[in-house]
């Protein structure tokens, strides 16, 4: 088993066809789901009739601002962890020099990279945040009450992707095994996004934009 995990053939499969499958599924299914959401929401006559970009954008701004909303201020630790976690989660994979190099090798294009030290710190932040979220799910009663197996599952996907990435980068134990596992988990994460509640990375803009418009346009109050 370990032999297979560390094998070059698995590496080739994960870097080659599986990588294509993961990215295509991620993009195509995400776009499909966004279109589906747009359609099903427009069938409900009361949604887009009230959506106003000016209110939606204002609301995004405050909810994307650390301590920007009252609820963020009421939960400072959650606020700090969730911001650091999400920023790292999005920017490290995109701007990591090793990832960039792979794309450069394949297509001859590359973009900005972040220093490996910073990426390392961000990865540790993601790993610690995962423990923080896990702790919330176990020890905070109102979170524990609404936690399902699927919540641990999506947390585990993120956790193992970053953990194996960290171990592979530092070449702890067997580099090849962790590299393969890292790619595998990364691909599982990409594929999971459109099919699990990880889709909140896109649907956030729908739900927040809509309620912001209801509050700003109809209710004439801020929603943060």
């Amino acid at each position, binding site marked *: 088993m370990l032999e297979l995990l560390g094998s070059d053939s698995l590496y080739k499969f994960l870097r080659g066809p599986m990588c294509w499958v993961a990215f295509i599924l991620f993009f195509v299914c995400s776009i499909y789901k966004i279109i589906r*959401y747009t359609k*099903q*929401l427009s*069938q*409900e006559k*009361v*949604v887009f*009739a*009230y959506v106003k970009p000016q209110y939606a954008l204002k*609301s995004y701004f405050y*909810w994307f601002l650390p301590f920007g909303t*009252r*609820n963020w201020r*009421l*939960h400072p630790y*959650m606020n700090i962890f969730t911001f650091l976690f999400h920023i790292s989660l999005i920017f490290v994979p995109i701007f990591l020099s090793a990832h960039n190099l792979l794309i450069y090798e394949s297509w001859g294009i590359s973009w900005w990279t972040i220093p490996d030290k910073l990426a390392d710190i961000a990865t540790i932040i993601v790993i610690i945040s995962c423990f923080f979220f896990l702790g*919330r799910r176990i020890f*905070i*009663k*109102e*979170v*524990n*009450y*609404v*936690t*399902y197996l699927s*919540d641990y599952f999506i947390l585990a996907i993120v956790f193992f992707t970053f953990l194996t990435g960290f171990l592979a980068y530092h070449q702890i134990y067997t580099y090849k095994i962790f590299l393969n596992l890292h790619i595998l988990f990364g691909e599982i994460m990409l594929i999971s996004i459109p099919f699990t*509640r990880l*889709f*909140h990375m896109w*649907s*956030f803009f*729908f*739900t*927040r*934009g*809509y*309620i*912001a418009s*209801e*509050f700003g346009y*109809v*209710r*004439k*109050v*801020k*929603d*943060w």
Partner: protein
Amino acid sequence: MAEATQFNVVDPGIEEGLEKLTEKRKNEVLSKFVSILKKGRFDVYVNTCIHCGLCSDACHWYQSFKDPIYSPVGKVKQTIWEILRRDGKVDRDFIRRAAEIAYTECNLCKRCSMYCPFGIDIGYMMNMVRRLCHLLGVVPLYLQDTCNSHAVTINQMWVKEDEWIDTVFWQEDEGQGEIKNFYIPFDKEGADIMFSVIGPEPKFKPQLIQEVATLMYIAGIDFTFPSFDGWDNSDMAMYVGDFETCERIKRAHFEAAMRLKVKKIVMCECGHAFRSVYDVGNRFLGWKAHPIPVIHAIQLYYELLKSGRLKVVKKIKEPVTLHDPCNVVRGRGVGKYARYVLEQICENFIEMTPNNEHNFCCAAGGGVINCGPIWRGKRVAGNSVKADQIKRTGAKIVVTPCHNCHSGIADIIETYKLDVKNVFLVELLLQVVEIPDELKVEY
């Protein structure tokens, strides 16, 4: 802190409904409901919620009991997620509990929508659970009675047309003891304002009709009341989940104003009725907003003070605080007008914390108080956070410009033995505004 499990309320409406509910009907309604859950907003909401629990602190029920079954997402879990998980195959005990949650443990105040990072509209979801219960015929007795009244009489309190007219005449008579030539015009075509009240005013608090009419009379406003159906602006049907009746009563309300060709409607100091006009009833009727201008009484008071049509001659000396009604303040941003009025008429106005659109609900709104006296104990225990909030201000008067809030806070004051009285805004205003000499009755 009260124990959440100590309430074993048996509601005859819910029990009878469950008895009458046939398996066939139950399966039909639930399978249709499941199909609704899988499309539109519901589908997006269910698949976006990340189960973070950050909405919990927004809810006064959760804040009071500190039991996760009362958190907004906890209520969704016990109802909607469970229906989806079981694909609609739920038993009667489940329906009983779902009705209890939706009708008596959620005030649809939408504070949680504001605190959810995704802006998931849990109030809407809970109202749809009420819709489900309505279609199953499982509704708290007292609440269903108000809805029956709406359906039959187009007002909430079984008030007959002659009783309504007679009540207004009676109040006019009373008012003439204070104000010379005071009268309350009925059906005046082309008036500037049609003032509309809720059914419980002629039924329980007729003096409010006199008070607000007095205020408008002193200010020299061209106002009128409709004598026919549509005078009542309240709407318990939307809280029952009976959206068809909701449409009928809102249509009657708007049509009354159109028949009288008035320039605008002014809604009495009530929250849910206001919500029905700008947010709910209008949409069921296909109107994006209300078809004719509608303002809340607080806005009218603000305009009258700002324009100088009402003059303040003295100020309230006792410390005053304001309870921001959800459907008026978080619902329509009227908080700033209420504050202007209170700053004009009070020497010592103290804010509650949190306030304005962040204020806690009274736990009576959303039709919860209309579920009747059997639920009173639970409702008041479920809002100890409000009692603390009022106590912290140190005020002697709490202004509650909404009928449900007024009754709910009266219960809280009584139960928690708070040294404070609660009043409507008009009651304070009448104490401080100038009555011109020519309008004073000479004895």
